């Protein structure tokens, strides 16, 4: 790479100057390529946000317009209609995430620090539920919800989103618990700490950043979920993805309005994901990659 490598091929490049220059320009070239790829990949998101700031008439033109006088009109329209939807989404997302943590922390403990005999089977049972296609049971699920008077209720979404995210959370929290130094646990036990004090006093403070990233992953999946909401709710529990669908009218111009709604619906998760970038990998790989 540097001058030390040059003697191997002494004929070319006596002085290090040109070679270094070539190395540098190659580096710049790769950098430029990465930027081009990044921007190209981001383009649809950028276009969504741009279109959201257009007046409806400027959103449907040929050629598409990049310069226009921005307006907040579509956003105002979105904010005037999103009330119930965003409330349902927040309740379903926060409710299910809290429930996931309440169930997931003790379960992870029983699968890592003080493992049950069949912890392996337990782990694989949880992950196998993630592979069962929920779509296969949607008809019966509807009937069950109907008979349990849970149809079109926010509780139903909380219950189902909890079950959807719990396996992921258990695998993830478990991977954090395994990193708690054994000495700390043993010291606590010598001090006479019981299981509960061991969890609340030693483990939880150490894994709290891990719990936050687990929660963020759960928030992302719950907030974005459409299939169950679409099938099992109508008005009393309709969530943000359904608000999006309702923003596409049967006729008339709608691209700017749709873009504004899509931007508003996506922004919370995009921000959460940007902030949690570092722990995103670990969460998505269910704790396999640190």
């Amino acid at each position, binding site marked *: 790479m540097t001058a030390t490598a040059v003697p191997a091929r002494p004929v070319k490049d006596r002085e290090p100057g040109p070679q270094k220059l070539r190395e540098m320009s190659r*580096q710049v070239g790769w950098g430029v390529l990465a930027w081009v*790829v990044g921007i190209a990949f981001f383009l649809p998101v950028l276009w969504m946000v741009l279109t959201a700031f257009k007046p409806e008439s400027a*959103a449907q033109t040929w050629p598409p317009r990049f310069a226009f006088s921005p307006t907040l009109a579509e956003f105002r329209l979105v904010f005037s209609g999103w009330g119930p939807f965003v409330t349902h989404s927040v309740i379903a997302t926060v409710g299910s995430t809290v429930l996931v943590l309440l169930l997931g922390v003790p379960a992870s403990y029983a699968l890592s620090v003080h493992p049950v005999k069949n912890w392996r089977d337990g782990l694989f049972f949880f992950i196998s539920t993630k592979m*069962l296609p929920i779509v296969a049971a949607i008809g019966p*699920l509807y009937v069950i919800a109907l008979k349990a008077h849970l149809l079109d209720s926010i509780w139903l979404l909380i219950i*189902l989103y909890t079950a959807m995210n719990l396996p992921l959370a258990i695998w993830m929290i478990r991977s954090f618990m395994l990193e708690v130094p054994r000495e700390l646990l043993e010291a606590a036990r010598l001090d006479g700490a019981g299981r509960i004090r061991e969890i609340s006093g030693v483990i939880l403070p150490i894994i709290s950043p891990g719990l936050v990233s687990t929660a963020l992953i759960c928030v992302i999946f719950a907030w*974005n979920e459409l299939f169950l909401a679409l099938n099992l709710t109508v008005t009393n529990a309709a969530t943000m993805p359904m608000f999006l669908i309702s923003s596409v009218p049967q006729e008339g111009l709608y691209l700017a309005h749709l*873009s504004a709604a899509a931007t508003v619906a996506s922004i919370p998760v995009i921000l959460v994901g940007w902030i949690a970038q570092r722990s995103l990998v670990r969460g998505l*790989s269910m704790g396999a990659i640190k």
Partner: protein
Amino acid sequence: MTVLEGVAPPEVEVRPRGVSRRDRWQRRLPLLPALIYTIVVTQIPFVVTLWYSFQSYFWNTPAPAHFNGVSNYKTVFTNAAFRSALVRSVGMTATAVIVAMILGVAFAVLLDRKFLGRGVVRTLIITPFLVMPAAAALVWAGPMLDPNFGLLNYLLEPFGVHHVAWLSTHALGSVIVVMIWQWTPFMTLIILAGLQSQPPDTLEAAKVDGAGALATFRELTLPHLRPYIELGVLLGSIYLVNVFDAVRLMTNGGPGTATTNLPFYLFQQVNNAFDIGGAAATGVVTVILTIIVATFALRMFARVFQFEEGGV
């Protein structure tokens, strides 16, 4: 820095040999709420599905459900629509996962180098994964792919593309493109973690030995990446085989049945045909097929997570 972790808990605590009954229950207790919850919420619907699969039950008629033997299953197995939805599901998932993985490896290699603004580019690349799938589907269907006003037609105009109605002429391809667009960031992140966990001294040694960049990648990096690629393919498949939002919101399964995958087919059976019994039988067959695939997937999982060995 990043490694695939062996998830076996430390040996000290693990052998419950000769432990008292009380201790066993103390260990079990914290697990029970989550276990019972998961069994009740995820297994009961499938038991009920099994029950309804032997019933004739249309919820748009007042007639109560009644037992009709295996006739729902006969319909499933003689039904060409089910078979084609199944084949389409497999094809869509495989294409999307493979292309997303190839792009993911390429992007990860780009992001693994140092350059100005690397953090920003990384952020740009992961963003599609974070966009709400319903929003992604609608924005692609509208502002991006609209035949008259869409950005894509505008960008492709210099290449002789004129107002293509992508969702009518290339429906399946369009849906798959959106799937790829959303899942490439996921693959990129996982592969990037793999690249960054590569011990730098072996790469340095290869360089000193005069190995070219391509040979180094093929001989050293790719084998090192293998578990990461397996993990990405596995997890990507689990999510992508269930893709519903893009199909429902971009093409509604059409034109005709050109983009009807299994989830959408089941959705239609329940919502348009009101056929609970038929949908249940389709569901049972789907679950059985899934279990067959999942058995292999779980084995792969065990290998990737490195706890195949017994003895704990």
